[in-house]
C-alpha cells in the first residue's frame, strides 16, 4: 500500500498520534525531571482522566465540562498522591519508588474496574466535531483534526507555565539541579507537589480529550504507558521539548512503518529507542545533569 496518497495520509496520522503521545509524555517527563520519580501510575492517571470525564459528561452532556472535570479530578488525585505517599519516597531507593507507583496504578485500575466494570465505555465527540472531513488527499475524522489543535493549545499552555512563570523557572532549575534550588531557600516540597499535580493533570487532560477517539477500559493506560516511556527515552528524560519531539517521532514511526509492514510498527518504535540509547544515551534533547 505504498503510494503518495497513503504516504501523506500516514504522515498526517503520525502527527496526530504523536501529538497525543507528546502530551501524555510531557507530564511524565516533567515529574521525573523535577522529582526524580518515575511515575508508573501515569498510564492509570491517563485512564482516570477518561473515566472522570465520562462521569461528568454523563451528568452534564457537555464535553467542555467533561474536559475541565477530568483534568481537575486527576490533578487533585495527583496532589493527594504526592502529599500522602510519593513525598515519603523521595529519599528511598529507585526500586521502592517504582514499586509504590506501580502499586498505586494497579489500585486505580482495579478501583475503576470495580466501579465501572470491564465493559468499555464511550464518550462521543462534541456534535460540532463529529463526522469526517475531506482533506483533499484523504478523509479524516473531524474530531482527530480538532485534537491536534486542542493538544497544541494544551502544550502551549504548559510551555508558558514552564518557561514564562516564576514557578516554571524553579521547576526548570529543579530539573537541572534540585540540590542547588533547595539551598537557595526555595520550598522544594511545595514545588514538587505542584509539579506532580501539573504532570498528573496533563495525563488526565489527555485521557479525556482522547476518549472520543478510543473506548474507555480500565487497563487502557497500560499500552500507553509503554509508548510514553519510549517517547521519554527518545526525547531525553526530563526534557519538555524532548517529550514533544519524541512524541512526534514515535507517532510517525508507528504510522509510516504500518504502511510498509504493519507487523513491524511497534518493533521499529523500540528499534528507534535502542538506536537513540546507543548514539545519545541521554536522549535527543536530554542532558548529562538529568541522568
Amino acid at each position, binding site marked *: *500500500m505504498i*503510494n503518495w*496518497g*497513503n504516504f501523506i*495520509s*500516514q504522515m498526517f*496520522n*503520525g502527527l*496526530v*498520534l504523536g501529538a497525543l503521545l507528546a502530551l501524555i509524555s510531557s507530564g511524565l517527563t516533567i515529574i521525573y525531571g523535577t522529582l526524580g520519580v518515575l511515575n508508573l501510575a501515569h498510564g492509570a492517571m491517563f485512564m482516570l482522566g477518561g473515566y472522570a470525564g465520562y462521569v461528568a459528561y454523563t451528568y452534564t452532556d457537555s464535553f467542555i465540562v467533561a474536559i475541565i472535570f477530568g483534568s481537575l479530578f486527576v490533578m487533585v488525585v495527583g496532589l493527594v498522591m504526592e502529599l500522602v505517599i510519593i513525598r515519603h519516597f523521595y529519599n528511598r531507593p529507585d*526500586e521502592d519508588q*517504582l*514499586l509504590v507507583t*506501580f502499586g498505586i496504578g494497579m489500585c486505580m*485500575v482495579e478501583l475503576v*474496574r470495580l466501579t465501572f466494570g*470491564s*465493559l*468499555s465505555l*464511550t464518550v462521543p465527540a462534541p456534535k460540532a466535531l463529529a463526522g*469526517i472531513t475531506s482533506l483533499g488527499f*484523504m*478523509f*479524516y*475524522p473531524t*474530531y*482527530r483534526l480538532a485534537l491536534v489543535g486542542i493538544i497544541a493549545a494544551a502544550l502551549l499552555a504548559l510551555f508558558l507555565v514552564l518557561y514564562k512563570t516564576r514557578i516554571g523557572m524553579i521547576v526548570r532549575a529543579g530539573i537541572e539541579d534540585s540540590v542547588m534550588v533547595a539551598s537557595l531557600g526555595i520550598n522544594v516540597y511545595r514545588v514538587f507537589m505542584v509539579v506532580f499535580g501539573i504532570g498528573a493533570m496533563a495525563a488526565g487532560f489527555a485521557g479525556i480529550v482522547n476518549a472520543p*477517539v*478510543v*473506548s474507555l*477500559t*480500565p*487497563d*487502557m493506560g*497500560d*499500552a*500507553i504507558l509503554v*509508548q510514553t516511556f519510549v517517547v521519554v527515552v527518545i526525547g531525553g528524560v526530563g526534557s519538555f521539548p524532548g517529550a514533544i519531539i519524541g512524541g512526534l517521532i514515535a507517532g510517525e514511526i*508507528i*504510522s509510516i512503518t*504500518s*504502511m510498509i509492514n*504493519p*507487523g513491524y*510498527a*511497534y518493533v521499529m518504535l523500540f528499534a528507534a529507542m535502542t538506536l537513540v540509547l546507543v548514539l545519545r544515551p541521554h536522549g535527543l534533547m536530554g542532558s548529562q545533569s538529568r541522568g
Partner: protein
Amino acid sequence: MVKRLTGDHEFKAAVSRRTLLQAGAGLAGGMMIPGFSMPVYAADHPPIGTYPAGSSGNTIYIGAAVPRTGSYAVQGEDELKGMELAVEHLNAGHDLVKKMSPKSKKGVLGKEVKLVVADSAAKPNQAVQAQQRFITENKVVLMTGSTSSAVAVALNKLAQREKVLYVAGISGSNDTTGKDCVRYGFRQNFFGQTAAAAIGPVLVKAFGKNKKAAYLTPDYTYGHTVTKSMQDFLATAGWTTVTNQVSPLGAPDYSSYLLNVANSGAEVLINVNWGHDAVLSIQQAKQFGIFDKMKLAVPYQIPFLAREVGGGLLADVYCATDYWWTVEDKYPLAKMFNEAFSKKYGYQPEWGAQNGYVSFVHWARMVEETGSFYPPDIIKTWEKGEKIPSLLGDVYYRPQDHQCVRPVIIVKGKKAADMKNKEDFYDVVEIIPGDGLMQKPDAFGCNLGDYT
C-alpha cells in the same frame, strides 16, 4: 517486570521446599504404616500427574486461568461464569448435567468439585505459572482457561508435560488441536478452519464472487490461522486479499492500520481482532468512514461485541459463532442453560460461558463413564468418539486430534429497531453441522503424544 522477577524466584523456592517436605513426610509416613502407604487406586494404576493425590479426598479441584484484566477481560469473566455454573450444577446433580452425563449424580464420582481461579491477563507465562501453582498446591484434576490461543497452546504443553487434563477455554487457533495438539488437551469450541468453512459460503452468497478483502489480524497464533483459513476458503470463490493489517494484541489505536484499509480499495473488511481490540478497531473504522466504502464481517464472533460497539455498527454484519442464546427455540438443553444462567447472573450467556459450561460437563461425563480419575483411562473414554449431547444437539470428539465436531452458528447483527429485547442483538441465519466443516485430522500437523 520487577514484580515478576522477584515473584518468580520466591515462588519457585517456596514450591520446591514444600514439595520436598511433602515428599519427605509421605516417605516417612509410608514407612511407618505399611498398610496405609498404598492408595486404593494404585493397585491398578501407577501415580501419574496429580493422580491419585488429587482425587484421594472428598474434594477435587479444577484450576482455571482466565483473563480478568487486559483486552480479553470481559470475555474471560463471562467464560468464568459458565464454569462456575457448571461446578454448581455438577455438585448439585442438576438435571441439565444429567442430560449430558447420564451417570452423574452429585459431584463427580461422588466428590465435591471446587474451582480455583487465577487471572491470566491472556498472557501464556502468567497462565502457566498459575496452573503450575494449582497443580502443586491443589493437585487439580483438570485445568482450563484461555481466551487467547497463545495461552491455550501453552497450557496444552503444560498439560502434556504434567499429565494433567486440560479443556481449552475460548481458543480459535487451528494450532490448538492442530500442530500444537496434545494427548491431554481437548477443545469443545469452533476454530479458524470451521469458522471459515461456515461463514465463507455465507459471505460469498451475500457479497458475490471475486471480491477484494482487507483483513485486520491480531499478531499471534489465533489471528494468523483464522486469517489464513479465511483467505484459503475465499480464494476458492475468487476473493483476493488487498491488505492484511497485522497488529499486536491490545494495540491502543488502529488509525494507521485503518488508513491503509481505507486506501486499499477493499470491498469487505474481515476483522479477526478479538476482545476489546475488535471493539476499538470497529469503532475507529466507523470514525474513518470505512463502512461507507466497505462491508464488515467477523469470522470469530466476540462475546459482548454488539453491546459494546453500540450505535448499530453491527447491523447486517455476518459473524460466525459457537453459540447464540436465541438458539434456545430449537434446542431444549440450550433453553435450560440460558434459564439457569440468566437467573443467576442477570444476562443471557455469551458463547464463552457456554463453552466453559459444556467443556466441564463433557469432562465430568468422561470421568463418570470411566469410573476413575486415572487420566489415561479418561482420555481413552474420550477417544471412543461417541456421540454425546451438548447444548446444540449431539456432538463428538475426534480421537485423532481431540477436537469436538460441533455445529457453527452464523448470525447477522440486527438493527436497533428490529431488536425484540435489549439482548436481541443477532438473527440466527444458519446452524451448520460440524462434520462438513472439519479439515482432515492430520491437515494441521497434529501429533497427540503419549498417554503416560
